[in-house]
């Protein structure tokens, strides 16, 4: 399937709002090589204030390298990064730290013997805050992530979800204009993951731009305003979640069939014009059919073809979600 490398936003509220705001992050033709391997090979990205921009890709696609380059932990080989319109390399460290913060992917990014509060106080002081201001800001940030009661406990006693929320709180200490979140929910249970996502939503609510690197497709629907999908360091897709869903339509279907008396044709012959039978299994009193629908055939035609020869379709579902299909097709390794 051919998909344009960059799908422009068409219309809609998110698009029109975004267009009116100057970009918080602009990345143009960013290249980062490690020896002969290009971790980033000409990446373009624009994220506007108040947006959640999902960065999708398989392991090794370049997501983390991109985030680390934005925050200054990795040098770019070439290309341009602008933060609020200013070339990132020319920004003094203090200004850059105020502008952009990272929520790293790992769990172990705190001093485990210290309490959550003490950890945040330490980092607040390193961000240049005075003692009183640091105490005040730490209390505020801890409260905003719902950790006030646990604030004086050692971080070693925190759950994964609590550590992740503490990590978000640390990133919010400077009230950054851009928040980079790297695989924040990959090891969290659904409830904890939802807590983190709603935290991030509240951050965009006050105008911050968020770049959210993830492999979890289920979480970007209804959460991300835009998506950039990376494969082998290149942008494979850029657009909205809806556009990503339409980028690949899953045509593999799984049906549960039941014969009405004796069918006049077997399943494969009944469907020969509608698609290809991949697998047919007998289960109790019905058949489980895995079937690839031909691109020019609609589902109702296949159902009708079965019905007229004596097969009832009891249930039908796609083998994969549209997002999952798009992800797999767009990130499929070449060759």
């Amino acid at each position, binding site marked *: 399937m051919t998909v344009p490398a960059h799908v422009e936003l068409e219309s809609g509220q998110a698009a029109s709002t975004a267009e009116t705001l100057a970009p918080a992050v602009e990345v143009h033709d960013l290249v980062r090589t490690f020896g002969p391997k290009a971790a980033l090979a000409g990446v373009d990205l624009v994220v506007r204030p108040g947006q959640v921009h999902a960065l999708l890709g398989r392991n090794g696609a370049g997501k983390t390298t991109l985030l680390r380059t934005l925050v*200054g932990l990795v040098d770019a080989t070439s290309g341009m990064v602008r933060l609020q319109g200013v070339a990132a390399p020319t920004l003094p460290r203090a200004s850059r*730290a*105020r502008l952009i913060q990272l929520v790293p992917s790992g769990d172990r990014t705190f001093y485990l013997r210290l309490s959550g509060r003490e950890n945040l106080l330490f980092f607040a002081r390193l961000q240049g805050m005075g003692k009183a201001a640091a105490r005040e800001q730490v209390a505020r940030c801890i409260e905003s992530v719902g950790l006030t009661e646990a604030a004086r406990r050692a971080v070693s006693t925190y759950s994964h979800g609590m550590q992740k929320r503490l990590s978000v709180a640390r990133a919010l200490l400077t009230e950054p204009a851009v928040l980079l979140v790297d695989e924040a929910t990959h090891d969290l249970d659904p409830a904890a993951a939802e807590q983190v996502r709603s935290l991030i939503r509240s951050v965009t609510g006050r105008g911050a731009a968020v770049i959210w690197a993830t492999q979890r497709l289920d979480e970007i629907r209804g959460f991300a305003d835009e998506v950039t999908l990376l494969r082998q360091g290149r942008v494979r897709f850029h657009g909205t979640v809806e556009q990503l869903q339409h980028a690949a339509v899953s045509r593999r279907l799984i049906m549960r069939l039941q014969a009405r008396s004796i069918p006049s044709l077997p399943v494969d012959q009944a469907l020969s014009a509608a698609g290809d039978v991949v697998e047919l299994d007998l289960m109790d009193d019905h058949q489980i059919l895995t079937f690839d629908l031909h691109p020019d055939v609609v589902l109702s035609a296949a159902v009708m073809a079965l019905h007229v020869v004596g097969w009832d379709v009891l249930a039908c579902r796609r083998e994969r979600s549209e997002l999952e299909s798009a992800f797999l097709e767009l990130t499929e390794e070449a060759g």
Partner: protein
Amino acid sequence: MTAVAIAVRQVVSDLPKVGAFIRRDLLITLSYRLALVADWINLLVQMVTFYYVGKIVDGATMPVYGGARASYVEFVSIGIALTTFMAVALTTVVQALRTEQLAGTLEVLLTTPTSVAVIQLGSAVYQAVYIPLRTAVFLGFVALIFGARFDPAGVPLTLLIVALFVPVVWGLGLVSAASTMTFRRGGGLVGLGTIALTVTSGAYFPVDVMPGWLTPLLAYNPIGLTLEGVRRSLLGDGMTGGEVFSLIALLVPMAAVTLALGGLAFRQALRREIRRGTLGVY
């Protein structure tokens, strides 16, 4: 404004952050109470060992300070105190770096607007306060329990000599840290050099017993020079102004060289890691 001036201004403006490092390290140390107690017990056991070794050492081989021959316990306790002090100073930055890497906090630290020099200083400052206190208490115990005689009048000169010695060790520590950052466990090579310097310094036995051909080298061993100065201050009748000046004339250039080398090596190692994107890898 030159790059150096900007860097200096950044370091100066970051200095108030050092207090946060002290608080962090104090709280972490207090959270490991058993390790703290074990450290003191270890020191005491070491001293008891040397006390009994001293029983079999011929007192006549001990050097004379201020007209009186030192006992082995007096002699070696100063060696232990100074080499322990040196070992800690030498490994503080390396250990801090490793700890931050293992804790996963190194990259987070480096995303804060804090100069690398202040991160180094902050990582070491707690030890810099704790170790002299520990050394003083240790020597006090040795005097009390084993009857060693240290002259309190020699303390100011001792402090001056140790103050001259610290930058030398600090520079070597930075080289070691750079080596660790680059080769992960590369501190071993620097450690080997340090052991060679320690063995030939006269920390545990008088240098007179070593082969004569080593004598010219021993005269430029910074640990040996410092030890001799401290022993003369605490066990003898001190040093003349000329002797102090000579010591300063030797230690200051050594400090300048090791600090410059260490600073450069560390900066280069850090740049390399950021260039390669392997800062958090351990």
